[in-house]
């Protein structure tokens, strides 16, 4: 397999002060859908803009399809499609005109009509961009990324602001693009999105990658398979974390929003022991759920913070 995106020890410091990217390595294979996941200000946009050849890194190397921006910019621009986190397209052009305009920039563009149909924009073809809803604008931004018939798609938070239905539509489009051999790098705040869509992902925090792998691997490796959440009351004898940690099959314990959360690889052993411990101390169990661990849990586990502060 060949490499679509590779960067080594990427660093970006804004104005000599803000270290937005602090030594980041990535290797994305051709045909992969790769996700960059991280909280606000983690450095996702900065990273993706460097990879897109829009921003110079302070240091580090970038190769796209094994070529460097400094020497092959023109060639690379034909191969990539991008949608920026925030773009306001010309308000006074219609959807059709905007897509046509972008098509004209490329050697082998796709049919604007076809792209418009894919993005469910046909109905709005003649509407001015200024009159579209937020989600429709977002879809148009992705359409301008797709119309150049790219081999590599960079999508910076493509589904932020979309309703659930539009989000699924966009997932389908990304999958179709991937099935035709395309490579995708996307950033997102949505865990479920990353889990469903990405073959592999990296979790970024403070400009560094803190974990990488397939969603399954990350969950398995960091959290174990199941999360057991519970709350107890009626006891002056609050049980310390340490003690919960000693229950069979428990890999880690943390408090989250009033709940005690256990990472359990073998819930069938943990749950009976948990119930027994509660019983033994005369506590009351106010809350008990078990669920599959998610990427959100991975993030909380790694940083002690939630990905999105609601």
């Amino acid at each position: 397999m060949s490499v679509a995106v590779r960067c080594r020890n990427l660093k970006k410091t804004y104005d000599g002060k803000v270290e937005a990217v602090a030594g980041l390595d990535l290797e994305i294979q051709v045909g992969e859908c790769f996700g960059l996941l991280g909280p606000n200000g983690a450095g996702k946009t900065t990273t993706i803009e460097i990879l897109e050849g829009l921003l110079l890194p302070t240091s580090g190397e970038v190769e796209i399809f094994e070529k460097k921006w400094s020497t092959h910019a023109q060639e690379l621009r034909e191969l990539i499609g991008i949608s920026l986190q925030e773009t306001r397209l010309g308000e006074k052009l219609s959807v059709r005109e905007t897509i046509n305009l972008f098509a004209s920039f490329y050697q082998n563009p796709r049919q604007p009509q076809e792209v418009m149909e894919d993005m469910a924009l046909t109905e709005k073809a003649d509407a001015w961009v200024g009159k579209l809803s937020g989600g429709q604008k977002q879809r148009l931004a992705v359409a301008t990324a797709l119309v150049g018939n790219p081999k590599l798609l960079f999508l910076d938070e493509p589904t932020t602001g979309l309703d659930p239905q539009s989000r699924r539509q966009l997932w389908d489009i990304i999958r179709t693009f991937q099935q035709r051999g395309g490579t995708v790098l996307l950033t997102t705040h949505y865990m479920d999105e990353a889990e469903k869509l990405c073959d592999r992902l990296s979790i970024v925090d403070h400009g560094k990658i803190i974990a990488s792998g397939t969603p399954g691997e990350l969950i398995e490796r960091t959290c174990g398979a199941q999360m057991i959440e519970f709350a107890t009351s009626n006891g002056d004898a609050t049980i310390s974390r340490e003690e919960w940690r000693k229950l069979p099959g428990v890999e880690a314990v943390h408090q989250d929003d009033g709940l005690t959360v256990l990472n359990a690889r073998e819930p069938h052993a943990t749950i009976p022991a948990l119930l027994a411990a509660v019983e033994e101390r005369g506590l009351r169990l106010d809350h008990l759920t078990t669920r599959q661990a998610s990427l959100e849990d991975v993030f909380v586990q790694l940083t002690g913070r939630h990905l999105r502060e609601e």
Partner: protein
Amino acid sequence: MSATAPVLTNLVSRGGQPNLVRIFAKEAKYEFLKSIRLPVFAVSTILLPIMFYVLFGLLLNNKSGDFPITTFLIATYGTFGVMGAALFGFGVGMTVERGQGWLELKRASPMPPYAYFAAKVSTSMIFGAIISLSLLLIGIVFGGVHLAAWQMVKMVSVLVFGCVPFCALGLAIGYFAKPNSAPAMVNLIYLPLSFCSGLWVPVQFLPKTLQHFATYLPPYHLSQLALNVVGIGQGGSQWWHVRALIGATLLFLGIARIGYSRDQGKLYG
């Protein structure tokens, strides 16, 4: 923009057909559509000079003396209009598009960056043509303006190509101004510059010091070139005016270049 030559050969040779022409034409067409559909832009650049002309040239003109005021004003309001189209198109248009990320998105595409600028210059020229033709038409129909065909052609050409130094000035403003402050900044330059160059009140009626000052201002030279077509300029040599305009263009491009490297130094061309 040093990549111009390789880009050119690249695009022409690889695609077989001159793709560049297509990019350029599309970009120019949409740039024009975008501008004309923006009421603020269309009204202030096209209607303002025409309104001034009707007001001061036709309605408030007491026809004293034998000064051909209606002809004179075609040249000066024409200059005023062309300058406005260029300054607003570049200065305001560019800052806004930069702020919106629209420029960045294009930069990420294989579109050669100069197609964007070329489109903006063409749009300014088309606006210049619309403005000067409208003034001519109104002048001929209502203002008793008599011009030979070659004079009309020459006058319009001077005004159309005369937008270039102001495009350069707009570009310079565009690189230094922020989206919010750009319109104010353009107006702050546009209006005093027009007045001091004798576009509203003929330069010979301005105070002596201002008359001298005017010779340092590009709009003065453009209006003089246009006035010379009909033989009512102040009499400086054509070449002097042309040289002044070229000099101004280079100066503004130099300033724009500084702004460019300050602003986009972080970016790949």
